């Protein structure tokens, strides 16, 4: 298995390099310099800006500096100690890429991880119930609601969820159960004190970890909205997987030999349905990291989705390149991990 994993990593290196190079080429199709200048820039200032941004140099030099911890200039090669541009300065905000990305990850995870866990468990459970009652009213009702959930835009759920769940409910009960917007970290990141990373509190500050008391007020409503939306898609998928398995010979055999229905469903059926379940969860993993742009924007959760959106729209190449490169790594890693997990859950799968 280790040899297989190592080989897969090697095979994926050119893919990763290709992704990053393609991204860098695509970003530079249109000259970004005009987006970074004032409305009255002169030709001299345009040229100076191009030099300052480093986009006057050959693309391959820019690519090499991004991928390797080096800086190239007329005097030779200099060691920088930083890859993927984490130490580069953002073009949009006066800060380093790392300082911009770092406090965005935990807010995204505080939404997406609970949403992924809840929606996976709930939709598998609902899928099981639906499949076990195939053709009956309960199955039809669940499929009906799943289709409704799929048919309505995520944005509609967010707009209505925010209005009724946060605004209307507060007016109705006179108590703010869910906030309209906001995010409460354990303590706000010490943007004014870059050295505050030595203590646990400093670490929590730096990574913008949500506070336990503030999380339900600010994050639970968006998590619930996310779960409701995901349930529609996932339930239909898991139901069809489970229904397909339920017509298999081994299920018929289990029932024939008198296994209780619960054992048939949970022990035999669910176990064999794990491969599509794992595949679906693993495909979702990179999106867990990048967060949910719409939820983050509407509920003002300072996550990675919002960060990526802001910096892409402002043509901030350093931040965009770094986030996309990291996402590409996560995507590739989750693919490899999926294969490994297949082997762990299904003895028939051999990695070679």
């Amino acid at each position, binding site marked *: 298995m280790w040899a297989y994993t190592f080989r897969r990593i090697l095979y994926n290196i050119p893919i990763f390099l290709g992704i990053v190079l393609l991204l860098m080429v695509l970003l530079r199709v249109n000259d970004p310099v005009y987006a970074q200048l004032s409305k009255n820039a002169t030709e001299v200032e345009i040229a100076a800006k191009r030099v300052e941004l480093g986009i006057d140099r050959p693309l391959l030099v820019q690519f090499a500096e991004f991928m390797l911890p080096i800086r190239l200039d007329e005097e030779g090669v200099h060691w920088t100690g930083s890859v993927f541009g984490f130490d580069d300065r953002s073009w*949009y905000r006066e800060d380093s890429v790392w300082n911009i990305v770092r406090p965005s990850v935990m807010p995204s995870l505080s939404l997406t991880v609970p949403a992924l866990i809840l929606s996976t468990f709930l939709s598998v459970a609902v899928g099981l119930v639906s499949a076990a009652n195939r053709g009956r009213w309960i199955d039809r009702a669940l499929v009906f609601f799943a289709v409704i959930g799929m048919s309505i835009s995520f944005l509609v759920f967010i707009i209505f969820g925010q209005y009724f769940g946060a605004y209307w409910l507060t007016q109705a009960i006179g108590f703010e159960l869910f906030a309209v917007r906001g995010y409460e970290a354990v303590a706000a990141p010490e943007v004014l004190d870059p050295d505050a990373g030595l203590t646990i509190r400093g670490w929590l500050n730096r990574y913008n970890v949500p506070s336990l008391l503030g999380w339900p007020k600010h994050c639970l409503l968006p998590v619930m909205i996310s779960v409701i939306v995901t349930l529609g898609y996932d339930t239909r998928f898991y139901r069809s997987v489970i229904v397909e398995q339920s017509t298999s010979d081994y299920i018929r055999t289990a029932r024939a030999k008198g296994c209780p229905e619960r054992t048939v469903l949970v022990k035999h059926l669910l176990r064999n349905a794990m491969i599509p379940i794992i595949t679906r969860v693993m495909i979702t993993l990179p999106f867990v990291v990048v967060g949910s742009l719409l939820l983050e924007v509407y509920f003002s959760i300072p996550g990675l989705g919002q960060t990526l959106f802001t910096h892409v729209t402002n043509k901030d190449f350093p931040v965009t390149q770094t986030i996309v490169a990291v996402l590409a790594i996560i995507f590739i890693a989750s693919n490899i991990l999926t294969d490994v997990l297949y082997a762990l859950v299904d003895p028939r799968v051999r990695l070679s």
Partner: protein
Amino acid sequence: MNRKADGMFQRIATFLTLILVSVAGAQDRVVQLPVRTDGPKSLDPVQGSTVYDNKATVQMYETLLEVAYYDTTRFVPLLLEDLPERLDDGKRWRFTLRDDIFFIDDECFPGGEGRKMVTDDVFYSWKRLADLDNKLENWWLLRDTIEGLEANAQGTKFDYDADVAGLVKIDDRTFEVVLTQPVYRFLWVLTMFQTSIVPHEAVEHYGEDFSRNPVGSGPFVLDEWVPKSHMTFDRNPAYRPMFYPEAELWSEEDAALGLAEAAGTRLPIADRLEFTFYIEDQPLWLEFRQNKLGLIQVPSAYFPEAFSKRSKRLSREFRQEGITHAAVPLLDYIFRAFNMEDELVGGYTPEKKALRRAISLAVDWDEFNQDFYEGLCTVYDGVIPPALEGHPENGRDPRAPRGPDIQAAKAALVEAGYPDGQGLPPIRFYTSQGGNNDQQVEMLQRQLSRINVKLDPILVDFSQLIEQVNKRQAPMFSFAWSSDYPDGENNLALFYGPNASPGSNHYNYNNPEYDKLYESIVAMEPGEERTRIYNQMQEMLFEDIPAIGALARVRYYLIAPWLKNAKPNERYYGWYKMLDADDSKR
């Protein structure tokens, strides 16, 4: 026992109540305001450019002059004892700093104690605009303005110690500025936040992090800045004695709104400012409705909820809640334009002028206003926005080729040599993507189709639009200009020959007679003679038609009942120090 316990509980309850009451009595006056973005880019004045940078920066840094809160077409001294003295017909200006300006206490100063602001700080701060290391983001404000002040060349370090001929120090409080030519707008530039005064110690101490560690002399000090979330400021305890404008300075209309009531109150009035960042309109609107925000610019989607669309009157529900509103006209110039160097639509021959006149006469700006701006914009002739010197009465100028006048447009098309549009190829029209621009393009195409003029619309990113225009490759395009300062001269400069692309004369309009007139007005103070020249210059533009338009937006603000002294404007944001919160009305 029970009675004893009751008595004890009663005493504890009374004691707690007293504590609560005293705490409540001593509560800070907090003003919560929205910022419609994910936050400022930088708190370094020379690197700021957006409205959001402006809003945040001016709470902590100050400029020599500021826009008057009671009349945004005037400026008043802020760091100065008095308005600068005009010498040599406006080529030289003498300034005297107030004697009581101190930077806030900060570790960048010896002993951590803020020091007095002196002349050298002013020179240093302005020189920073010319320093290539500061990206020259705002160098255009002082470029070619002060004698001897030049940006450093690529690969060299800016020499802050070198003398600049135009910056003459008389003593620690008094100095003179010698301009390359008399330019009246120079004083307006000194109201802009990018020219704020910063101490060199802070820039040197914090280096790259100076943009997040403001050390100013303003009414507030930064408490916390969490990007994408919020920003809070506390009152600067050492802020010099500054006072709310006197009652006689306010107009009757403003006084009737209660704006003169705080006259003479020491500034800042609020103890704390809290900015919350919003990207989407719904949370902004809902939090305002929850009374969590002092004022908001009404998002267009919620306009019908707050106002009658026809009368623009605030709805009864809002009035009953004590919410008030303010309509703020913007110094906008929204227009369609031509590249005067383009072979098809450019040029100065009678035929070319007739073609542009035909197009102008076919365009119906009122229809754009009604369909895309809820009828809230002001449609006007010429290039000078409403409320400024040179703006035509009621926005109408009989000399302007204002449409829709299809008959006249068709006649002009015949003059141009394209009767009924025959022989005229489609005109490439560039505009930016996003918003309802694609629909606006469709409307423009429909309007021009009435005279059989066809457009070849190209919707691109805004940066691409700028690139195309700067490279003089866009025959016709759509743009908007927001005046840098409230003087028509700023808009007339858009057609000044030497400002051709990539400068702000995106039309590449070249009329030596116009240029001569423009050069004559830059040094002039407001007055009848200047207004007459403004009109003369606009007449030339009506004749040559490098641009057609225009529209100016009016922004509607809602003000919560608990927010006092609010007179929103989008000219400057130093007025937050005037705001007060009446918690009894929350």
